[in-house]
């Protein structure tokens, strides 16, 4: 056998062996189940029997049957996405820009503090906020008592008017630090000479940030927006802990509905349909956001 051929065989073998564990995990846990979900989304199925094929009926029911609350859950996710993109990200960007200007002990300390909530488990944060929202002994209502604003008091997570807001606040709060650090990485990557040149031309720090730094870190901003929106679509933890989707299912999100379909209603076909919708929505939004960023560049 020639040296070259031997080499080819070794390469082929190596590619196979090295890819095997990754591909096995990836295909068996992600790709194959998605294929099964797509297939099962067209069944009326309780998870154990054979089920009956019903075509796209589940999809139609999802959007037309009001008692499933899917449209409402989607609306909740999109409201959360809105606050993530227009409150959380600007705040994160502002912090990243301010802290990225210099690098002294002060900036480093603030950076470390602002990243802390990211390290805390969402379940812990949820429990903590339950104690803040508690109607009788919670911090929030007792604070309102103390400043004589009793009329502002609410049963925060139990009142249909305030429940969704009670979920949005901790969600937005927790991940500011995550996006801040991503953006900070971009800001620190900007060439110091570029900043200096702009300053020599008479630009203020704010102008440097606006016209030099932000355009350069656009790719990171795009990633942040995609993470914020897809993260909102996937949201689950804080809803489960704070409201359980209530009161009167007003704060359901697609993921909690999905779980209800499995464990409360035994509708595995419909659960699969919700899964498929979530994947489609995540991909659609990721593409849409990428396209929007491209358009801006031109």
């Amino acid at each position: 056998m020639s040296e070259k051929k031997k080499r080819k065989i070794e390469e082929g073998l190596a590619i196979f062996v090295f890819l095997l564990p990754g591909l096995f995990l990836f295909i068996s846990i992600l790709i194959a189940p998605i294929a099964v979900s797509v297939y099962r989304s067209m069944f009326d199925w309780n998870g154990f029997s054979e089920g009956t094929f019903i075509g796209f009926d589940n999809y139609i029911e999802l959007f037309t049957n009001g008692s499933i609350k899917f449209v409402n859950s989607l609306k909740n996710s999109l409201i959360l996405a809105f606050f993530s993109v227009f409150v959380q990200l600007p705040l994160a960007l502002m912090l990243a820009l301010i802290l990225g200007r210099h690098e002294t002990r002060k900036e480093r300390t603030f950076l470390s503090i602002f990243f802390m909530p990211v390290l805390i488990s969402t379940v812990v944060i949820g429990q903590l906020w339950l104690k803040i929202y508690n109607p009788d002994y919670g911090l929030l209502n007792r604070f309102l008592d103390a400043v004589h604003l009793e009329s502002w008091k609410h049963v925060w997570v139990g009142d249909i008017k305030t429940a969704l807001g009670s979920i949005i606040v901790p969600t937005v709060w927790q991940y500011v630090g995550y996006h801040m650090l991503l953006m900070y990485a971009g800001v620190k990557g900007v060439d110091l000479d570029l900043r200096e040149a702009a300053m020599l031309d008479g630009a203020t720090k704010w102008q440097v940030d606006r016209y030099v730094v932000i355009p350069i870190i656009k790719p990171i901003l795009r990633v942040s927006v995609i993470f914020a929106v897809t993260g909102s679509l996937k949201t689950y933890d804080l809803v489960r802990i704070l409201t359980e989707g209530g009161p009167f299912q007003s704060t359901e999100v697609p993921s909690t509905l999905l779980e209800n379909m499995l464990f409360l209603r035994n509708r595995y076909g419909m659960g699969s349909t919700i899964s498929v919708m979530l994947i489609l929505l995540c991909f659609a939004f990721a593409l849409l956001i990428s396209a929007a960023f491209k358009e801006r560049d031109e």
Partner: protein
Amino acid sequence: MESYTLKEESPVIKVIINIFLVIWAVINLFPIYFMFTFSLKSNEEIFGENIIGLPKHWLWSNYSSALNTGNMALYFFNSLLVTTLAIAISIMAAMMACYAITRIKWKFSGLTNAFFMLGLTIPIQASIVPVYVVMSKAHWLNKYSTLIVPYSAFALSMAILICTGFMSEIPFALDEAARIDGCGLFGTFFKIILPLMKPAVSTVGIYSYLQCWNEFMFANVFISDSKHRTLPVGIKALSGQYTTDWGPIGAALAIATFPTLIVYLFLSRKIQASFIAGAVKG
């Protein structure tokens, strides 16, 4: 690095910026402080006049209730075990896949990489129904591996993305030199590439840690027996047990949180640097 001090802002703006930073810092630290203090208080103190002050009587027994009656020690161990193994498996699988994709030239390497990158957008909810059905039919619920396998699969894409960035910085001349010395592809991977990928391990580790340690949906759906609960599920169960007794819940929250925060305090520079490396390489 104070090299551009040509146009300084007015002192007023500086003060405003500093006030803003301090307020945001307080908003970030206060919940942690609140958690720590109420974890050491009795209900009388929490419900009475001393809601945000330091505890008058430091009630360490809350911690022993959380650890013993509440099983927090076991849940902590479970989380540690599941997270560590999931990270180890995903890093190893990612490094190997990365080597096949970036260091060996073949037709479909780009396509394979793109295939793995699909995982970055796929939500964990996407596979929950089929995986749950298969696992319950195979009697594979309520085990450590029930969580370890899905966690490592869902951490894989990010791990490959980050590893690719790190691996592409290793000069190809090293591979060639190893080959001339008679080292095969397997030898090159284990003896040359792996030792040089150490910085990638900490970066991948941080991203996977954030994903696995806090994961709640899979854990909540797949684990119903108390022996294999991870911290998030354990805390949820505990809060159902102690609905009126806040102290032990506070202690449980603190037990789940402070070990991480303490490690972070000591290694914050390194952790941030690794996180940032992931953002830049990715």
